[in-house]
């Protein structure tokens, strides 16, 4: 459970990234954060996870959030298993090293994410998608029921995007709460119960269905966006296209 009330943050005075922002992420639901480049998605994710302190308002977390940053290399090449074990850090005493229980929890998290086979591989040698999955496994290993993910599908190929989306959906089914920032409206359509749209005119929050519509998305990205209905093996779904014909006249 995550709740923001009247939240405001700016890197300099009078230059708010967002202001008066209120929304909550109840257990077993996903809230997606959408917006163009530079709209403050990462800043909001960091504030929600507690990496940045709000300047106004309050954020309430039922427990310490597991934060999944955007995957990028590390200076030192630790094995993937060691990276996931580090997710246990808050459960391990200051002068102690992880024990058998932490190792088991990490391996279980890797199993759950479907990357048990990567345990012995060095983190920097993994592909972007694999690194992303390791970071998700790390947050899962921490045991938090609340995850904040910063653009978990950015930079991944289609197969890995699907893999990450299905994994996140799996996690939500077990009752976890997710705050996910993304560049893909169709990922929000697939995953999200509610959305936070960070536009130039301000932030709009609400249920995903009505907000992820043509008019709202077109205004958000400043380009014509259409949603299309399709049949996904019997399940009706919507996806997003940007009709190029209009741009070419």
């Amino acid at each position: 459970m995550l709740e923001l009330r009247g939240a405001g943050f700016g890197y300099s005075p009078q230059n708010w990234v967002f202001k008066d922002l209120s929304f909550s992420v109840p257990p077993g639901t996903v809230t997606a954060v959408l917006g163009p480049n530079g709209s403050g998605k990462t800043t909001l994710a960091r504030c929600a996870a507690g990496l940045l302190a709000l300047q106004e308002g309050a954020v309430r977390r039922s427990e310490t959030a597991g934060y999944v940053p955007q995957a990028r290399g590390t200076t030192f090449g630790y094995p993937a298993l060691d990276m996931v074990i580090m997710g246990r850090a808050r459960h391990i005493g200051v002068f102690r090293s992880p024990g058998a229980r932490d190792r088991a929890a990490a391996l279980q998290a890797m199993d759950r994410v479907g990357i048990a086979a990567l345990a012995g591989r060095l983190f920097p040698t993994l592909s972007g998608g694999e690194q992303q999955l390791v970071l998700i496994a790390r947050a899962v290993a921490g045991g938090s029921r609340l995850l904040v993910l910063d653009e978990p599908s950015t930079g991944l190929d289609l197969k890995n995007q699907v893999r990450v989306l299905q994994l996140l959906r799996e996690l939500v089914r077990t009752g976890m709460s997710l705050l996910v920032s993304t560049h893909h409206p169709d990922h929000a359509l697939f995953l999200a119960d509610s959305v936070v749209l960070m536009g130039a005119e301000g932030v709009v929050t609400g249920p995903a269905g009505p907000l992820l519509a043509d008019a709202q998305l077109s205004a958000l990205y400043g380009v014509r966006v259409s949603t299309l209905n399709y049949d996904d093996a019997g399940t009706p779904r919507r996806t997003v296209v940007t009709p190029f014909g209009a741009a070419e006249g």
Partner: protein
Amino acid sequence: MLREAQPLTTGYPGGRRGPGLRQVLGPCLLSLAVLAAVSALALASGRYNVSLAHVAQILASRIVPFGSNLPAAEENVVLLVRLPRILLALLVGGGLAIGGAALQAVFRNPLVSPEVIGVSSGASFGGALALLLGLGPIALVGGSFGFGLLALAIVFLITSGRGGAHILMVVLGGIVTASFFSALVALVTYLADPFTTLPAIVFWLLGSVSTATWAKVVVAFIPIAAGGVVLLALRWRINVLSLGDDDTTALGLRPRLLRWTVLSAVALMVAGAVAVSGVISWVGLVIPHLARMWVGPDHRVLLPVSFLLGGAYLIAIDTIARTATAGEIPLGVLTALIGAPVFFVLLRRNRERIWDGA
């Protein structure tokens, strides 16, 4: 153009299981054996030749008192001259190496060492100031520690902006800090009495363990052991810290507090080393690299192995320094003369493995 460090991809073998007791203990025991062999050879060699059998007998006679029929001169050479010198080299070399390994983790950059980030310069100013004012050994260590920590704080403030510990900022901050304190050291030598304090300061700054006594061993042992115990106790936390502030916070730890604890411990160790032996460069850079190529970046293994190998390395170099020529080559000169080319060869040979992420 210098870029942010690329990942180091040397890892331990062992795949899924990760470092169990065996992976930690194996390299440690092996480096301990290297250290013991180097120490034994160092105790035996020198202008006054003592055989290895006699060395063993002399050391054993201190533990199990039985009548020794060896000449008193041999005993004195081993116990009063060579043993304190070797212990001092072990403490200084080990302390600088483990400190270098920890600094490389904190700055997330494998090119950082106590000299590069200006700690040694700060510590040498503190020590030179204590010598100038004619204060005792406690002030020498205290001055070295205080100014070593101050230098570290300055570098850290310079690099703590939003850019993070970018290598250019770390190196620049280190250069700025080191040259500032070098200027202060020059000022101290300028003010020093050329007949009494100046020779003492200059000789001290050259870097040497030749004036080792049991008293100096104690002076070095206290700060280096204290700092080393802190670093070894935090060995796994240092792994987490090496991922960066964001990840450390996200994992539920407090990176600033942790970093300052590690930095203070390193400053304490470097200050202890500088106080008894002046500025001995390269050990803190070369040894952690060598150790990392061998055992991988996990600080649970890397830190103890760095300490043992750093000690063995400095004992070996010091033995060369006192036996190679009739006179004595200053240790700080030799570590640079030997360390720089060795490091260069290692870097070239392992370039693909270290820098290209293969």
